[in-house]
């Protein structure tokens, strides 16, 4: 293990306070405000759920697409709007925050003033044209320590508002229909027919020309059998009261008139204990409401049977709550912050994540590297905050999302998916606002955390499918099939020529940004470079003696943007090894270089090779070819070929009817009710051949509109005029 510091002049120099050593790959992002990247974000106010937040640059692009026409005039507008965008970007970077429309108004006024142009001049006109094309508005935020909280709270509020709409639609529909039932019952009562009710129905302008007493007297009296039973009315009233006075969502636009309406519950918390306690306290209300909702749904369908359902609702408790019912109620949002929240909260957080309760937990981490030994330990949530999300995946029933601030926009769909998840959800977000990395913007640091695999982006969605392939998603990481992502680094060499080199961004690159790790880094200028130096990513692959001979380094730049090699200590390389190990574990879960699959593949290859050696010609096909004849498609043969169905004709020449063709026209049944009858489909058949005379049979056959009655042969030879009847019956037999 190498420990000896490299003998250079500035090895023991005190750490620099501004712009310390940076990885060379970050050099090109020095002037971040000049670049159009994912921040500032606009937390849009339209609650359509599709675009909860969008980068300012995208919004401006859309505006320009709509307004800047090809040609010099359009180009001028484009330049001016982009200048304004740059101003907003700078203002936000300096800590200004506000709604997009406000910032636009304020900063465009500044821009016009500074340009020296008059109001309503070309600049003013162009900016105004662009402003009209601005379709969205909302808070503009930069990337800083507050970002994860703001973004998640905003998204949660949008999801909450959507739930509230769904809730109100369902509950108000029930309230309406239950009120209708009570109202229609009341309309059948004596009170509704009484003079007083009639009088009030007339409204305020009564002139005495109508005698309501007399009017009431001529109206039909109420019949008690038309009224709804008292116990049902009572039940509906109780249910209505519970539904109207529910404390879960604000009533929205309609103000429900409920005497004992309580204050609407708040569902945002800053500790899991508070959230869990609140859920426990509110449980009786949840049960009452759920019961009322279920009874209401049965009542409006007229399916409530007291003898069946009363016992069920008497014993109704929390074990009967279904996810469908819980999904209707709000989910709680808990905001925990590493280093701020009481560390014991983490156990309550895991308790909540292991439950089935609808709790969304945001854990914001500002520092993933952790303290090095001489510094005082922090009140951290857990030893490895960067591993909390991976730990939560082990609970298996919680939705888990891990992302750095810089990747939030790219992860937006899955972020919203997690908020819609019915059970517990954990969002572990690294803000990048690490205090010990001065001079590096939070956006760059958080992006570097993802890039260096120190804080990979992933999601675990238990509802996405039955297997890891569908539940776990690692695809948002750069070059997720390799250990460290490779990038081209372009630089100017000693003689002023452009050079390019492929450089990996490793955990060590991320660590050298942090001042606390400066002790383990040694900057070497070009003259000090030796052939024993190898890049960290290569050094990590080395084993045995090479490990001791070589010195791992990171390509860096000094404050003057001169290339240096930062040789790192084993403190950093060990951490890089651990980081790489954790990353490979995640890769395996995502099916990349899965060890089981690789082993099976190796075994199979070996088996094939040995098989090829022993058997002379390889088997023509390892996979059995489906030589089975394709099954003849079963086509529903036309009904004509169907089995012959014996007609309901009797063998003894008795009377019969083609029942299936009967049109229920009552002709035959009016002739004889004993001879003919209707079956369960109200179609006629011969109920009793001896139930009437042969004459009746023949007359029925003659009058049958569709000629389906067949009188057969007479059963009573004594009947008069038989010959004539038999002749008439001929046409129908």
């Amino acid at each position, binding site marked *: 293990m190498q420990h000896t510091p490299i003998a250079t002049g500035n090895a023991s120099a005190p750490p620099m306070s501004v712009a310390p050593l940076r990885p060379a790959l970050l050099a090109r992002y020095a002037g971040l405000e000049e670049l159009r990247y994912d921040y500032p974000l606009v937390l849009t106010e339209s609650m359509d759920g599709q675009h909860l937040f969008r980068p300012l640059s995208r919004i401006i692009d859309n505006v320009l697409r709509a307004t800047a026409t090809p040609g010099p005039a359009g180009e001028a507008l484009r330049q001016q709007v982009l200048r304004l965008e740059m101003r907003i970007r700078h203002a936000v970077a300096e800590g200004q925050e506000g709604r997009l429309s406000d910032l636009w108004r304020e900063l465009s006024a500044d821009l016009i003033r500074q340009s020296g142009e008059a109001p309503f001049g070309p600049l003013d006109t162009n900016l105004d044209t662009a402003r009209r094309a601005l379709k969205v508005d909302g808070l503009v935020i930069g990337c800083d320590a507050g970002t994860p909280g703001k973004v998640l709270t905003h998204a949660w509020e949008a999801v909450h508002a959507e739930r509230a709409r769904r809730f109100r639609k369902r509950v108000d529909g029930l309230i309406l229909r239950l009120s209708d039932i009570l109202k229609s019952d009341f309309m059948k009562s004596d009170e509704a027919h009484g003079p007083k009710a009639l009088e009030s129905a007339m409204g305020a302008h009564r002139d005495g020309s109508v005698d309501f007493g007399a009017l009431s007297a001529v109206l039909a009296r109420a019949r008690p059998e038309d009224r709804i039973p008292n116990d049902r009315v009572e039940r509906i009233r109780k249910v209505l009261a519970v539904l109207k006075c529910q404390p879960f969502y604000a009533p929205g*636009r309609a103000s429900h008139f409920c005497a004992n309406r309580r204050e609407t519950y708040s569902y945002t918390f800053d500790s899991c204990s508070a959230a869990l306690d609140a859920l426990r306290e509110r449980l009786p209300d949840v049960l009452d409401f759920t019961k009322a909702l279920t009874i209401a749904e049965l009542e409006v369908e007229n399916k409530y049977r007291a003898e069946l359902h009363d016992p069920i609702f008497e014993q109704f408790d929390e074990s009967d709550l*279904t*996810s469908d019912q819980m999904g209707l109620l709000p989910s709680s949002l808990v905001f925990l912050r590493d280093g701020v929240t009481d560390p014991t909260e983490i156990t309550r957080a895991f308790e909540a994540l292991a439950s089935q309760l609808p709790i969304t937990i945001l854990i914001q981490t500002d520092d993933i590297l952790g303290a090095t030994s001489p510094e005082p330990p922090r009140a951290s949530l857990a030893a490895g905050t960067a591993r909390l999300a991976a730990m939560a995946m082990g609970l298996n029933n919680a939705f888990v999302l891990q992302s750095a601030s810089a990747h939030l926009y790219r992860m937006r769909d899955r972020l919203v998916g997690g908020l819609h998840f019915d059970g517990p959800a954990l969002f572990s977000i690294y803000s990048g606002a690490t205090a010990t990395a001065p001079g590096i913007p939070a956006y760059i640091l958080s992006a570097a955390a993802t890039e260096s695999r120190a804080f990979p982006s992933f999601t675990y969605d238990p509802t996405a499918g039955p297997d890891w392939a569908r539940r776990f998603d690692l695809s948002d990481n750069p070059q997720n099939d390799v250990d460290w992502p490779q990038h081209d680094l372009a630089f100017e060499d000693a003689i002023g020529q452009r050079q390019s080199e492929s450089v990996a961004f490793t955990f060590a690159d991320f660590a050298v940004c942090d001042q606390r790790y400066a002790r383990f880094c040694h900057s070497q200028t070009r003259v000090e470079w030796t052939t024993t130096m190898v890049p960290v990513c290569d050094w990590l692959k080395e084993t045995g003696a090479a490990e001791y001979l070589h010195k791992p380094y990171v390509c860096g730049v000094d404050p003057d943007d001169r290339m240096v090699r930062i040789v790192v200590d084993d403190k950093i390389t060990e951490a890089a090894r651990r980081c790489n190990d954790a990353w490979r574990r995640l890769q395996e879960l995502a099916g990349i270089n899965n060890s089981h699959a690789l082993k099976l593949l190796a075994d199979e290859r070996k088996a094939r090779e040995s098989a090829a050696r022993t058997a002379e010609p390889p088997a023509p096909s390892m996979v059995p070819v489906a030589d089975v004849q394709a099954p003849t498609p079963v086509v529903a043969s036309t*009904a*004509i070929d169907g089995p012959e*169905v014996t007609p309901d004709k009797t063998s003894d020449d008795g009377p019969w009817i083609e029942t299936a063709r009967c049109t229920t026209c009552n002709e035959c049944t009016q002739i004889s009710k004993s001879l003919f009858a209707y079956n369960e489909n109200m179609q006629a058949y011969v109920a009793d051949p001896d139930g009437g005379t042969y004459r009746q049979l023949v007359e029925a056959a003659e009058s049958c*509109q569709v*000629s389906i009655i067949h009188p057969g042969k007479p059963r009573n030879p004594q009947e008069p005029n038989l010959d004539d009847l038999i002749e008439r019956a001929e046409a129908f037999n």
Partner: protein
Amino acid sequence: MTASMSQCLMQMVQTDYQMSDYQSEIAPRWCAGCGDNAILTAMQRLCRDEQLPPEKTVCVSGIGCSSRLPHYMNAYGFHGIHGRALPIAEGIKIRRPDLNVFVTTGDGDNCSIGAAHWLHAIRYNMNLTVLLHDNQVYGLTKKQASPTSPKGLKSNTTPYGAALNPLNPLSVTLGVANVSFVAQAVDWIPDLLYEILRKAHQHRGLSFVRVLQRCPEFMGHRFDDWVRDPMKMRILTHSDGLRLKPEVSRVYKNQETHDPLDMPRALAIASMQEEIPVGILYNDPSVPCYDDLRAGERPNTPALVKTVLDEEFDKVGIWPDSADPAGSTE
């Protein structure tokens, strides 16, 4: 997706409605031999087989022989005014989407005085089942020519024979925008009448079924040729439409496989003269329903109605100095 608790609890309540549960206390007062009876029976069969709760079923009608049907169904009914069955049914459906709404109307009711409502009901495409009882005559008032009466029919209003060609309800319906389901049945093939009615009820949207119906009293032997000769009936079958039972198929051998989405062919079938087509001429389930389009974000509860009205009134309200507008609007 598991069933919700209320669905499970509803399963506990077994219903077993019989035909008699849909028969009202009043016996049908149609003439003996009238085709309306077959339509009533088919409707009651449908209700029984689908187990439609009588209290969730409404029959709406206008005026005419056909429009007496709601009286004979033990369900909710609305015997409306002449030609206005459809607007009433639409009102019921938009306020109570949970009800099964059937409209029974006649050729006079629907195609003459109610023709305007007919066209717009098709365009609105609300989830209703419309049965046009077409006997081609005004029967209730004892024989006057209706819009579908054949040319030359001698009636009380046309003693020298009807002067005009009859209106074809099928072609008209097929020609209206947003048409989604058009079928034709005849009362003398009850099995098919029932099957078509079932398909119409299952269709989401306005299903228009014209039922050719014999009037033995005033139209004597109008349909005798077709009743007696099954080959003059053309049965439309399709895997997405009607499938025939063997016993029906054996009698009615004149069959055509007709794709219910094939509008040109449907129009050709609708205007057949020699043969009477029976089956589903057109069925497009993708046409949007007005009741779905207009289903509001929130139901109009009394509380919401009051709030919205108050808001509107407050816009033009003038408040005396002493009054506090915020306090009085809640």
